[in-house]
């Protein structure tokens, strides 16, 4: 009997949650409307009322809701994060996604039965790290950072009692999640301390002659010639000058897409695929969820016959950042 394999989709609003459920998500992950989660953007996320409505909607259809409390509680702020745990548990969420060891400790002490997942922001890349979180906090599942190759994921999965969830599609973090302070170096705010990378308040788009320039707190991240498609200024995807050569010094604006690895991931015992993008529109969530549902169903039904359908790739590339996709670190030569 094969282990269950879940499609975990993002939602930044109640309508996004509903379309994710309607289009085949097994689980939807969401956050509260504050810096207790790593997509702390204006107009996004849930309050207690919409959280309960979302959970009702999902549970009536046999689906799960996870709440991400995946930022690091700041000094003197612990109470706010603890209260977020209390509110999520009271609303009957299926799992809490947490990064910080202090908050994991609190959740485990207060709610011994609550299912806990280690967030990708926890930066756990080895079975030894997972052993710590498993022993100390009884985590059931961990989301692995987007830095391991497929073979390395298999090795971790083999050696841990913790369920493994990996990213399948969406924006690609080039840096280890939880260990990237580039955004706060330029702006003061980072995922770890404010729940945001490249915060909107620091972003500027300047038309300078024929060029469009993007800046973060004044730092020039990229310059786009006329006709070039401009993208949001994320430091790791900017063009910089190194030894008089201007290029994407860290990574091109590209999306992660692991459709072709799906049967391999299932075979190695990975238990869930995560789609990035709580900041995305319901239309985006619907299209991505539908495509991945179809792919997962095919891979589970008949892994030998599985091929990536061109209609899937076309659909996902249409939605992707820079209309390019990559296997990222899953494919060793990327490194």
């Amino acid at each position: 009997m094969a282990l269950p394999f879940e499609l975990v989709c993002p939602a930044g609003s109640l309508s996004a949650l509903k379309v994710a459920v309607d289009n085949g998500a097994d689980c939807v992950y969401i956050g509260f409307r504050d810096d207790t989660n790593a997509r702390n953007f204006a107009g996004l996320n849930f309050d207690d009322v919409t959280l309960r409505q979302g959970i009702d909607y999902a549970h009536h259809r046999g689906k799960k809701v996870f709440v991400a409390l995946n930022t690091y509680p700041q000094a003197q702020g612990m109470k706010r994060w603890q209260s977020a745990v209390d509110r999520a548990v009271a609303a009957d969420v299926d799992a809490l996604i947490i990064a910080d060891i202090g908050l994991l400790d609190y959740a485990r002490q207060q709610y011994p039965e609550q299912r806990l997942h280690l967030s990708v922001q926890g930066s756990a890349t080895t079975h030894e790290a997972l052993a710590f979180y498993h022993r100390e906090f009884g985590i059931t599942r961990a989301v692995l950072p987007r830095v391991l190759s497929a073979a390395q994921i298999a090795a971790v999965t083999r050696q841990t009692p913790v369920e493994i969830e990996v990213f399948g599609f969406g924006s690609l973090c080039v840096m280890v999640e939880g260990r990237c302070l580039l955004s706060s170096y330029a702006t003061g705010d980072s995922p770890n301390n404010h729940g945001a990378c490249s915060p909107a308040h620091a972003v500027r788009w300047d038309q300078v002659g024929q060029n469009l320039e993007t800046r973060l707190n004044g730092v020039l991240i990229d310059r786009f010639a006329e006709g070039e498609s401009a993208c949001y200024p994320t430091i790791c995807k900017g063009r910089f000058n190194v030894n008089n050569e201007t290029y994407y010094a860290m990574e091109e604006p590209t999306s992660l897409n692991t459709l072709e690895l799906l049967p391999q991931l299932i075979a190695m015992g990975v238990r869930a695929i995560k789609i990035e993008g709580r900041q995305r529109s319901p239309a985006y969530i619907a299209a991505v969820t539908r495509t991945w549902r179809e792919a997962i169903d095919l891979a589970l039904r008949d892994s030998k016959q599985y091929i990536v359908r061109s209609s899937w790739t076309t659909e996902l590339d249409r939605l992707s950042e820079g209309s390019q996709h990559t296997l990222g670190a899953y494919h060793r030569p990327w490194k």
Partner: protein
Amino acid sequence: MTTARLSLGPLLYYWPRQQTFDFYDEIANSTVDVVYLGETVCARRHELDASDWLTIGQKLQAAGKEVVYSSQVLLESESDIRRLKSLFNNNKYIEANDMSAVNLATEASLAFVAGMTLNLYNESALALMAKKGAIRWVAPVELNSAQLGYLVRAVASTLETEVFAFGRMPLAYSARCFSARHINRQKDSCQFVCLDTPQGLDVYTQDNEPFLTLNGIQTQSVKSCDLLADIPLLLDLGVNVLRISPQAQHTPAIIELFRAVLDNKIEPQEAFNRANSLRLAAACNGYLHDKAGLDLVASRHVGSY
């Protein structure tokens, strides 16, 4: 009177073997109190092996230094884990830079230093680390002085607090090697290109502002964190150890500047001014003052010190 000890952080760059030995010979003769040793950035770097680091550590110990062996930050492969485990041979004193290392230290009931990449941002996380055997923690560079002071007070009875006080700040880690990428090589066939850049590879914006430094899989600030002028503030907050990060030149002189300020032999601001000729690039201290990390804020602190 309140004072602090001085530490030398792990060498973040990749230098030729002899240069590394010579560097630590100089450090043995310096007035630094604590020295962190070992390769924390990239497992492919092999100019020194574990026994070489041990040899250096023994020399430093003989010179009266407290020696701590730092663990690799980003662990990916089985061989990374094997190397980490061997670090725990001989009951050495470890700086744990990943929860894998914390796990091994906990299982072996060894005291450890909780490193700056463990993401310890609050008192609950620190209390847990203390319970697991940590005796000191290194604050994330992102903390501002109010947060730092609060946490120092919260842990004062169980943990020492160490602060990154000088040098290019480690900001990010990746599976990808950016130094190899610069010359269109993959990490597995990097041919050890970072030996050519003993202070990393500087990244400029397209309007020619120095911004970041590539150091293999690590990305650093191009600017040098410099908290010399902030020493009175740090002492008032109760910080116990000030960390200086190694650079190819002037490290002993920088150590002596910190020592002179701690010994009240030179004004903090004067020490900061003298460091102008010793830094790799412009100074910054924005994080401590609740600004962007790259900012420089003049210290107005008048402490009890």
